[in-house]
């Protein structure tokens, strides 16, 4: 297994962990973190797979750079909404009415 495929494999595992976290965790802060783990996995897959023939490809790298900044913005937005929810309801979890 080459180093690039190792990056991509770790990325896949991180993405799956993140998806499971987003679906299973009730606490909103941890859910936002799981969402970020998911994003990091996707970035690793993009960068890892793109350089598997030994040459770094600037296009996926630029896309990942863009993605990182957007992920930061999305995280900040999510945190702002979580804080707003906390101020309004005093809870850090969504109501579970439609669940199970």
């Amino acid at each position, binding site marked *: 297994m080459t180093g690039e*495929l190792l990056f*991509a*494999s770790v990325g*896949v*595992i991180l993405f*799956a*962990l993140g*998806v*499971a976290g987003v*679906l*299973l965790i009730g606490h909103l802060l941890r859910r936002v973190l799981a969402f970020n783990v998911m994003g990091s996995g996707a970035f690793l897959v993009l960068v890892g*797979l793109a350089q*598997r*023939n030994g*040459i*770094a*490809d*600037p*296009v*996926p*790298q*630029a*896309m990942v*750079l*863009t993605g990182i*900044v*957007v992920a*930061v*913005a*999305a995280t*900040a*937005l999510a*945190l*702002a*909404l*979580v*804080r*707003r929810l*906390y*101020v309004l309801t005093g809870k*850090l979890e969504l109501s579970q009415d439609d669940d*199970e």
Partner: protein
Amino acid sequence: MKRLLVVLGAVCFVVLLLGAMFDLAPASVQLHAAVAANLPASGVEHPVTAVLLNFRGYDTLLEIAVLLLAMIVILATGIDTAADVRPSVNPVLQALAKLAAPLMIMVAVYLLWAGAFRPGGAFQAGAVLAAAAVLLHLVELLPGWQSPSTRLRLGLAGGFLVFLAVGAGSLMRGALLEYPPEHAGRLILLVESGLTVSLGLILAGLFLLLSRDDGDGP
């Protein structure tokens, strides 16, 4: 039950995707070759900057738009402000932050300039600027934002507006964000300077706005 299903699904997903990845045929399009071939016409020497600001400039335009949108939504959520209660800050930390902040601004300008020919560019520079602002905020030299002034709002939107103006100008000449090769370097530096200021302000603002009601935060 739900937990079991999700874990099973995730494991299946990993196995399938890993299997697909190890069988993956070599890429049919050699993007790095195309980038290298067009690099002289892009106005910069570093391939990642060329892709970000020239070949796929609309990605970056939309990215700064997304950041601005996030900022606007956070402003719109209107967190109730409360008294900012904090333990007093160590004066040594304050002195160090005062020393570090000008250096960080210098590093940001260097990164912006270096982006044309080596790793660096508007995003890294903006991140360093934002880190300087967050550092100053953490040692209480910079208050959290209650409500941005008109000048600050202009700074937040400035990078996007400059980029949009350059995009509109290039649209009139031909295609969106297709720079004429002889001016590409200068246009990219102009766009990147605007982006650096706006990115720094937005990233810092995301933190400073969210920390303005530290008193009763979760």
